[in-house]
């Protein structure tokens, strides 16, 4: 849908953006996926909180819920949520490097170095936590 400014002065053509604008460029699509990833991160967090709440209801109730998490629907959700969580984290660290300027004396740390450092720290911490639970 398009509109024209018919008021006094030259007739100005004003094109309107299509609702599918975010499908027309890869970077816009990736931006929308970054925004969408928040939904999956939030859903995963809510599910985790609910699981913790069920712990207070005793081992039987908690066990039944854990059993239900093995259904294909939940497994699919966890796979998708994991992919979006990784994407969310990577893009968050990339964004943080643009926002936060780190200065050491007169030297300014390049953004890529901040992102790389955060990603390495994230990988080490994730590995340590995963190792702790797998070893338990």
């Amino acid at each position, binding site marked *: 849908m398009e509109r024209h400014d018919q008021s006094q002065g030259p007739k*100005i053509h004003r*094109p309107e953006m299509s609702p599918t*604008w975010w499908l027309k460029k890869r970077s816009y699509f990736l*931006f929308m996926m970054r925004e969408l990833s928040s939904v999956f991160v939030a859903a995963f967090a809510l599910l985790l909180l609910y699981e913790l709440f069920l712990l207070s209801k005793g081992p039987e109730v908690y066990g039944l819920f854990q059993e239900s998490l093995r259904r294909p629907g939940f497994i699919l959700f966890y796979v998708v949520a994991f992919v979006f969580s990784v994407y969310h984290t990577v893009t968050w660290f990339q964004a943080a490097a643009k*926002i936060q300027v780190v200065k050491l004396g007169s030297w300014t740390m390049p953004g890529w170095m901040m992102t790389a450092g955060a990603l390495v720290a994230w990988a080490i911490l994730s590995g340590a936590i995963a190792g702790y639970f797998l070893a338990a």
Partner: protein
Amino acid sequence: MTDNTITLSVARYRPEQDSEPHFQDYEIPYREDWVVLDALNYIKDYVDDSVTYRWSCRMGVCGSCGTMVNGEPKLTCATFLREYYPNPVRVEPLNNFGVVRDLVVDLDDFMAKLTAVKPYIVRDDEKPVEEGEYRQTPEELAEYKQFSLCINCMLCYSACPVYGLEGGFIGPAALALAHRYNLDSRDKGNDERAHVIASSEGIWECTFVGECSVVCPKNVDPAAAIQRTKVATTQSWFKSILMPWAGR
């Protein structure tokens, strides 16, 4: 001049006769050292003098020749035909702006927003000229230099979907320039700009798509400027709550 040719598909809109834009194809000589602006000038000089577009310096400084070239916001003076040859080149007016005629877009909205952020040094008091200039250290210059390179070409507005969807958004270049002056050690206009840049149509409208920084021909980073302004504004707000006696 070679015998090779290239087709320029130019968006035409003549308000006195067109209800909406359409494309007109021009087959013109191809030269490897021509930029898109050279091709438009050739059309204007030898093929169709009714084609209307803006240009001035032809060296990436004036910022007046921004158009969409094959769907991407570009300066026509810095975009070579050889990047597209032998395929046709589609030239359209910048996205997200009203079209006055052919490739000429309406600047009024941008100019109003640019003016609103006071993109110049604001002082509480001016010292007499005989006392000399306001001096800066290289470190103070480095704080804002990147953001001072903006040429107001509006490519960033054209790439910004927030500006396209929410016309009230002050937009990348104006906010980057506000940030530039807020960082300038000689400037005292932070408070005067705050009510504009921290308004509902200012920095908080930005969702950090980041395309403004990608398309900038001068490597200014408006997306970073806006996010850093968000941080500075938030810090200032917390400070005013926790330490109201300290001022901004």
